[in-house]
């Protein structure tokens, strides 16, 4: 039995939440569906841990779905990189779901809750599927599974604020356009190589040589995934979707959705395209690099002026994605390490911050910064969590934010890109401002008259503080994450054919 489970771990990772999802809908109202969803995510997380442990040493697990031969059938392929991402996704889910019970009870009518958890599980399925699969078209399918579930999840915020509906609609249009671009790109690649397996694609693209179809495919995939991961001017769907989705959903999406998309980007850029041709690096550096830098500033400045805490954090996420993309465009091992480590670090920090926002919504009924005056006294633990998370967002030493920025600056300097390094530091200063605005409101402004605010319940505080704890723990003891990220980065660099590799 055990060996059977062990042999089918990669399939279980995806199938478990997928099968659980409809069951969840059948369980009926209330806590039963929640408890079931929780249980499923815990098991899913355990599977991820097992996969991570198995691949940590460098083994690559190749799993044939349905037993078909590899280039023909769908392959699930787990290596260090996606094991790491799987861990982030299932770990976030396992922490967000326990957190979700109280806030979901407050935000969504009881009879809809089973469906909500069903969508949640489907979303997890999709994200895990994107990450684990080794087949380009399968990525598209899972991308759409997760996206469709996400549209529904975002729209379920409409019980609180009807704007969630338009946010979800916009997200749907943009997400569909993105996914379709992606599938066009995959089609182009299929046209020239006749395969959809990522590893196989990498080999055949080299054999095939440069062509305009390849270039087309490259651009369509870049833009398609760029849409999904909210690359700067393609981020327009994100702020409203994050701001009006139910708080638990926002926390989960912020930690995982864009991260999975970043993973796909990394996978395609390095493993599939592999930089055999000059144009790939040029496009990255001429398009993505400037956009990433603009994102760091433009989005941060918008965040400064936002009054809605969730929307502010959403814009901050766009800026943080800028950092991740920046690390990618360096095309060096340190740069990639920075990206991957920031993938994790930002997931942890942002999840915690959005959870804090959720706590505010639950207790104070608002997350408008101007109405949070003096909340530091009423909700000391929640607000303290925000302060620590905010420090991590700024990148203060002893928090994870510092680790990512350290690697990022290091990578920029390695290439001798002084201005970029300076800009990374300068944009951190903007983070100080928007974090400070909240701290100022929470501690220095008087509480509004006649408002009673209780500290958030433990079921929400504990997951929040676990994320905060992680962001401190991995900030002090960065060995595990940076080693894992470094290994994943070197594996990616090795799998690519970067011409100028020393």
């Amino acid at each position, binding site marked *: 039995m055990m060996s059977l489970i062990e042999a089918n771990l990669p399939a279980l990772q995806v199938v478990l939440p997928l099968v659980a999802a409809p069951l969840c809908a059948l369980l009926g109202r209330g806590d039963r569906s929640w408890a079931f969803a929780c249980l499923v995510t815990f098991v899913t997380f355990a599977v991820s841990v097992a996969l991570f442990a198995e691949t940590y040493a460098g083994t690559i697990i190749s799993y044939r779905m349905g037993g078909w031969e590899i280039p023909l059938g769908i392959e699930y392929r787990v290596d260090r990189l996606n094991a790491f991402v799987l861990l982030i996704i299932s770990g976030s889910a396992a922490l967000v779901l326990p957190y979700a019970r109280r806030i979901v009870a407050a935000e969504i009518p009881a009879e809809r809750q089973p469906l909500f958890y069903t969508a949640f599980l489907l979303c997890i399925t999709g994200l895990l599927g994107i990450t684990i699969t080794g087949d380009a078209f399968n990525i598209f399918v899972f991308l759409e599974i997760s996206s469709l579930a996400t549209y529904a999840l975002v729209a379920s915020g409409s019980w609180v604020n009807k704007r969630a509906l338009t946010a979800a609609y*916009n997200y749907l249009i943009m997400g569909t356009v993105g996914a379709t671009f992606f599938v066009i790109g995959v089609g182009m690649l299929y046209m020239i190589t006749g395969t959809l397996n990522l590893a196989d694609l990498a080999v055949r693209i080299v054999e095939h040589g440069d062509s305009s179809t390849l*270039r087309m495919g490259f*651009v369509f995939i870049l833009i398609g995934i760029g849409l999904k991961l909210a690359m700067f001017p393609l981020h327009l769907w994100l702020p409203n979707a994050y701001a009006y989705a139910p708080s638990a959903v926002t926390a989960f999406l912020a930690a995982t959705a864009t991260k999975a998309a970043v993973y796909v980007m990394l996978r395609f850029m390095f493993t599939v395209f592999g930089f055999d041709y000059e144009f790939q690096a*040029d496009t990255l550096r001429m398009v993505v690099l400037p956009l990433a830098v603009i994102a760091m500033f433009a989005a941060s400045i918008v965040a400064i*002026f936002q*009054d809605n805490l969730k929307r502010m954090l959403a814009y901050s996420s766009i800026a943080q994605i800028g950092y991740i993309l920046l690390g990618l465009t360096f095309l060096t091992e340190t740069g990639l390490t920075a990206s991957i480590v920031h993938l994790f670090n930002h997931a942890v920090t942002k999840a915690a911050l959005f959870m804090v926002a959720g706590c505010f919504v639950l207790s104070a009924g608002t997350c408008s910064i101007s109405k949070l005056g003096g909340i530091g006294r009423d909700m000391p633990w929640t607000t303290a969590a925000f302060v620590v998370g905010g420090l991590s967002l700024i990148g203060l030493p002893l928090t994870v934010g510092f680790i990512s920025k350290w690697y990022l600056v290091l990578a920029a300097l390695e290439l001798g890109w002084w201005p970029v390094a300076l800009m990374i530091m300068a944009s951190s200063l903007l983070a100080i401002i928007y974090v400070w605005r909240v701290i100022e409101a929470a501690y220095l402004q008087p509480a509004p008259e006649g408002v009673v605010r209780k500290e958030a319940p433990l079921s929400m505080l504990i997951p929040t503080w676990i994320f905060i704890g992680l962001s401190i723990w991995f900030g002090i003891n960065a060995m595990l994450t940076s080693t894992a990220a470094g290994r994943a980065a070197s594996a990616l660099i090795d799998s690519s054919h970067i011409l100028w590799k020393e």
Partner: protein
Amino acid sequence: MPEYLTPALAYVAAALLVPFVPKGALRGLYLAIVPLAGILIFWGLTPGTYNAFNVMGMQIGLMRVDALSQLFGLAFSVAAILAALYAWHLRDTIQQIATLLYAGSAMGAVFAADLITLFVFWEGTAIASVFLIWARRTEGSFAAGMRYLIVQIGSGVILIAGIVLLYRETGSIAFTAMELGSPATWTILAAIGIKCAFPFLHNWMHDAYPSATVTGTVVLSIFTTKLAIYALLRGFPGTELLIYIGIAMALFPIVFALLENDLRRVLTYSLNSQLGFMVVGAGIGTPLAINGAAAHAVASIFYQGLLFMSVGAILFRTGTARATALGGLYRTMPLTMIFCLVGAASISALPLTSGFVSKSMILSAGGYEKMFPVWIALLAASIGAILHTGLRLPYLAFFGSDGGLRPKEAPGGMLAAMGLTAALCIAIGVMPAAFYALLPNDVPYEPYTFSHTIVQLQLVAFVALAFALAVKRGLLPKAERGIVLDTDWIYRRLLSAILGSIGRLIAGLWKGAGRMIASSLNWGAGIVYHLHGPRGPFARTWPTGAMVMVVAFLLGMTLVVTYI
């Protein structure tokens, strides 16, 4: 030895426990004992680096024990004990915790073998110490503390930038002597320079120290600047530039010290000038000069601390440190006066005091190297020190025109602390050999030659005569209520005027009148707000169509780029 042990740990651990120790004598004792525990950790260890480990491929070393770090560690510890005694009367838990953390950070920084550890504790001193200013709990002290914090944190940020550059350059973060020349080392020097109060970087000190609490100022005077001197001695010994910086630093504060009315500010200027001597010593860089700088730093911790303590005692009893309100206090505070005079004698380098045995080393080092301009400038600076702190300060406080105040003598704890510090100043002056044995370099030096003694006595006596005449003839600036402009004018007036107008503008925009936005578009702030504010295109909810347009446009652009 456990891997994470550093003297700083003892302080931090102790600081966490402070709230649980009952206030009063027990807590006073507790605070005085902590530094002893700190000494126990490093004392008697054979030189070497302890508690080293590897983080992210960088070699961290928490405890580097050698003569230099032990000397500063010991001096800081003793000074921390004396400061705890001085603050015996204090019942303010925040200040007590801040003092421990501050002293602990300084200790940690002194024993840091690598730059990252140095950086962490460097920022630690900044953050912990600001509470000593804020603890005054007035609007002015909050603002001053904020300015202080910004400068100090800024120093840390510059330091980390320098460290990153250095790491890039050399692949090492070890804290050893550096050669000025690369951007990395310049940046690090700038960071140290801020903490060290180099000219034009000095103003935080004169802004913040007089704004702290009675005991806070004493504690502040001990650590931050001496830590910077330590860092210079460790990182930039023999850097010629430091000689010139040091001379400027020794000379320019004299004028300010002579003009100032606030006695605590007089002392910060005199401290600034004394730091100049040490910087020159570090710049000369010969073994004797390094010894002199280290010795002078240690001596100055005590005599400057003693002076701050005595002025603090006056403030504590009278509620003011303004020279114009004081005078004639010798009647009722004779012990404080005597201790102050010991401090004054030390800073004047009177034989048999600590200043004599330490300052003369730096002058001699300059003399041996035949650096005439350096030597004569330092001589002039010594004269200035005799004048403004050796004579003017006690004169204004204890003699001079009677301000009519008849306060009680300082409380017992303060007297004990001042008495012990005074004894220490004299002990160092009387037994230089024992003191010299602690110095980093093994260079024979004898301060009490006939020549040295007699010329120094001549110098002090004639300056005293000049002072007496100048007071009589009105050749010295009168003590008047008022302030003296310093470089803080740049950021407190000029910059705040500029920022104030920008701030008002933004505040106006914030209120959100569309008219205002339109009329202020020409302003940069207006433009940013217009673009990024809640209604700006970056923040607006775009129509779906426009979003798709953006996507299509970007796709097209990227295709073009790819095909080029």
